[in-house]
């Protein structure tokens, strides 16, 4: 009996020690990087193509920087328009906090594409396979009209304490801010520009603010962005979804956070469709701050490639990714990755305060 007791005690002890989930490491197969080109051509706007290189997903250092000696060439409707010019700009990774600023390269060309153009871009770099991607004919402008942005409620709802960092210090303070919440119902009407053709769309909503403000204790803060807090899609065409549009920067135009932004005109082909979009905005200002805020609705008429890209990239970022097959985000670039596609955008902007 004593032996049994000892054995049972050991078993219980062993369970307590080991009853946890432990990640284990093992190596995957290394795959060489490839060139990446991303370009969404818009009729009437100069072409801009951003070029990177891909990384093996388990590389210890993430570096998407374009290789030295990279060249990009533009072809329109099968005719070469020559080499594109390289430019550098500063961008940052928005998913890191604090964000990492980096120099990235994009290529431009003087040619301004027109509706119906087929845009092809090829990219070469020493030590890499040549890549190329081609768009479908660039679409015409989506016929959409902004009918109404009805502010259904506008409150200084509450005061709340928020902990904010003190500049040049590791400490934080609690400040009391007024929380403004505004409910909007935006009505837009979309008219099919191409009867008999399946047109593909993407609807985006964003919000931006202009101006300066200060915390109650005098700490200055500039251009504190507002939040477009929620957009409710409860629409027979787009579907039903409550989309939270927030990130650490407080604003998000949210392609990555949106689950239902693409749709098509299969159900209103040749006709019009009226859509009501309820939104909730949140912001934290003192009442006397001089802030201007705008809501921007962007209706995008997409080529098939762009439509496939936005559809798959939103699928890949849904919350249930651990319960679904992994997403193959659409890419139409041969021998590499990325997207060469087109869109024609209509922007509807209006002030909310």
């Amino acid at each position, binding site marked *: 009996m004593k032996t049994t007791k000892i054995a049972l005690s050991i078993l219980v002890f062993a369970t307590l020690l080991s*009853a946890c989930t432990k990640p284990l490491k093992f190596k995957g197969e290394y795959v060489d990087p*490839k060139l990446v080109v991303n370009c969404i051509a818009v009729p009437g706007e100069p072409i801009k193509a951003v070029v990177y290189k891909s990384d093996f*997903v*388990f590389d210890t250092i993430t570096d998407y920087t374009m290789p030295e000696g990279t060249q990009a060439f533009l072809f329109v409707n099968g005719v070469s328009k020559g080499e594109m010019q390289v430019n550098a*700009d500063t961008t940052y990774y928005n998913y890191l906090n604090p964000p990492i600023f980096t120099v990235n390269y994009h290529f431009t060309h003087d040619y301004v594409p027109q509706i119906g153009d087929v845009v092809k871009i090829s990219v070469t770099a020493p030590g890499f396979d040549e890549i190329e991607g081609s768009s479908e004919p660039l679409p015409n402008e989506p016929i959409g009209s902004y009918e109404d942005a009805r502010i259904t409620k506008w*409150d200084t709802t509450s005061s709340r304490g928020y902990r904010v960092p003190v500049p040049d210090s590791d400490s934080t303070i609690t400040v009391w801010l007024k929380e403004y919440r505004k409910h909007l119902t935006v009505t837009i009407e979309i008219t099919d520009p191409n009867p008999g053709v399946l047109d593909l769309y993407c609807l985006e909503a964003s919000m931006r603010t202009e101006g300066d403000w200060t915390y109650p204790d005098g700490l200055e803060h500039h251009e504190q*962005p507002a939040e477009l807090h929620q957009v409710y899609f409860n629409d027979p065409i787009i579907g039903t979804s409550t989309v939270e549009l927030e990130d650490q920067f407080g604003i998000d135009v949210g392609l990555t956070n949106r689950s239902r932004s693409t749709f098509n005109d299969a159900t209103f082909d040749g006709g019009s469709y009226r859509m009501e979009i309820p939104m909730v905005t949140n912001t934290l200002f003192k009442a006397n701050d001089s802030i201007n805020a705008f809501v921007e609705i962007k209706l995008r008429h997409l080529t098939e490639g762009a439509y496939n890209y936005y559809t798959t*990239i939103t699928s890949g970022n849904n919350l249930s990714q651990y319960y679904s097959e992994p997403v193959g985000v659409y890419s139409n670039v041969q021998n590499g990755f990325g997207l060469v596609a087109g869109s024609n955008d209509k922007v509807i902007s209006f002030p909310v305060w």
Partner: protein
Amino acid sequence: MRKTIPFLFLLLLSLSAMAQKHCISGYVMDAASRETLIGATILDRNSGQGCATNNYGYYSLTLDEGPVDLQFSFVGYDAVNQAFNLVADTLITVKMSSNIQLQEVTVEANRATVGANNPQMSIIELPIKQIKSIPTLMGEADVLKAIQLLPGVQNGSEGSAGLYVRGGGPDENLLLMDGVPLYNVNHMFGFFSVFNPDALKNVTLYKGGFPARYGGRISSVVDVRMKDGDMQKYHGNFSIGLISSKLNLEGPIVKDKLSFNLSVRRTYSDALTNLYGLIGKLADPSIDKFSLGYYFYDLNAKLNWKISDKDRLYLSWYSGDDKIYANVKWDYAYEDMYADHEKLGLNWKWGNKVGALRWNHIMSPQLFMDASVSYTQYRHDLGMDQNYTYEEFKPNTYTSTDEMAMNFHSGIHDLTARTDFHYAPNPRHDIRFGGGYTYHFFRPEVQSMKINFTEAEANTDTVANTGDVHAHEAMLYVEDNIALNEAVKMNVGLHYSAFAVQGNFYHLLQPRFSMSAMVAPHFSLKAGYAYMTQYIHLLSNSNITMPTDLWVPVTARIAPERGHQFSLGGFYELPNLFDISLEGYYKTMDNVLEYKDGTSFFGTSQGWEDKVNLGRGWAYGVELLVQRSFGKTTGWVGYTWARSMRKFDREGMVINNGNPFPAKYDRRHDFSITVQHKFSDRFDISGTWVISSGNCATLSTQAYPGIPITYYSQYGGSVVGTPIIGYVERNNFRMPVYHRLDLGMNFRKQKKHGERVWNISVYNVYNRQNPFIVIRGYDQNTGLPELQQVSIFPIIPSVSYSYKF
């Protein structure tokens, strides 16, 4: 096909030519409990003719007039001999006594059903004693996990009770409880099955060569039979384990006429979690109410009414639910400035209900009828509500309330009427035929949402219903076990099924065939062929069994899945030592369903047809089973070499660029050894060791930035697009090898009113970290990306106490 039907009719007609024969029929049952014995053998030692009892313990043997010497045998029981002069049809009900000396558990319950001389191949019977003796996860004996140890059968993820038979999917298995299909056979997200061994009498697995009486799934049939109940005396058992307790009672209501069997199982993990909630509430005074729990239960009940010698009525019932609930209420006040009140509620429940009323009638000594009406239901209900109230006292007086409630329901209901006949005109023919009709009612999902915000003008109160679906399924079958001579036996059959749904009509004639030829003493060669179809699919693509997994019928766009399976093998009985079975199979599957990249059915089936692709699959393999069924040491060794592939290259339904890829649970090697040894009547041990190739997973190899996003913020300009993970091939990565050792011990002691048993089991004895999923994670120290496997079950000892009375 055109030649097969006339051939069958000719066989039936030829039966009338028999003359001067009489039929011996009756039931074979346990002498003590009057429980009928399934698969007991009856052999006339004079003529060498024999038969076996059916699922209701009934047998029928037609022999020439004259002296007969019958031997009734069943493993674990003393044989019964009856010699007499057969001059007329004779009814003999045999009561067999359990033989203590031969009570060692066996894999193979009886030679008549699964032995070398039986034409049926790819069939394995698992006695309940065997299932109960296998070491278990958390002390819960589990039918499906025992089946997973057999060659040709694989589990899904670590610890899962899912079945993947011969390269098929988890929805391709017909799981029958007393002949009635069960849709969701899992508890606790698939880690336990709904089959409570205490309530069961017999479990039979068919992996191929399916008899014509079965249909509706293409990969396997698991036929589970519940105990009928002791006609003589009351007895039962109860057990207390780590996660659940069980109680089983059976006995006569009217002796020798009416009996009952009742089994209940319930887990009590919710008691622990509620205790945890109580501690949390004590620790945080702002929490006003905290309850959180999960439990599952099973209730099996059966009534067995012997109306007369010719008529029996069975009423069986099963219900089982899983439930997760959480109720939390917070009250928080900040000085005298404001106060928050928040209430959250969650009620998540899913489960099955199965009921069957069955009438057995002996129409003539040679003709047995089994008529039944049954109902099966699976439903899933999810309810969530949230209530938030904000009160501001200073500087303004203000109150707002936000209320939100969401409910989700889905389910499937089947109502079935079915009649089966068992006709045994002579020892050379054992014919079964019958038909049935099932009304299916699918409710894929009903979702309601109610939002009521104080500050909102337009609140939401909607009900969305994807639309109920009504479907009708009918089937007819005929099969004959034919003994061509002493050495060659075959089972030939036809199964016809039809399915009507939403204006679409599908039907298919499915031939079935299996045979055995004794080419040497104790050695037979076997072959089988089966054509199967199924009209429903399970929408699920998670690693575990989720209650949100939805069954949906075929549609105009999604055609029925169909499969051909060919098998060939040999069976060798090494007398008093081993049985050795070697089988090879080749299986093709058409209209296999696979999910498009990025699709998820987590909580919704909306537009499901757009989320799946149809393709084809093929699987082949070799299975070796070496069993020892007698003596103090019993068990088996199983090995499977297998391959299962998929190809999706139809227009608009391309996956993996149209190239073949391995199925998710394709495993090249799968080896298991299961051993029980009885040291004495008071002590026995058992052990299981499994090792198999790892599962497949789709892993990315490349990452790159997506389309840059135009941005308005203090940082200005544009931001690098969200990194995109590039996938090259579906299921391009194989997880590490899986292996695990489980051990169990039983300490038995005879007490005044019964027997008590202490069981100690250790799952994963050497604490192998087997992969459950593989993810792209980050090193905790460096923050750099790395490939990680997540394991969920370390070494898990368990102890249970049971008492039989």
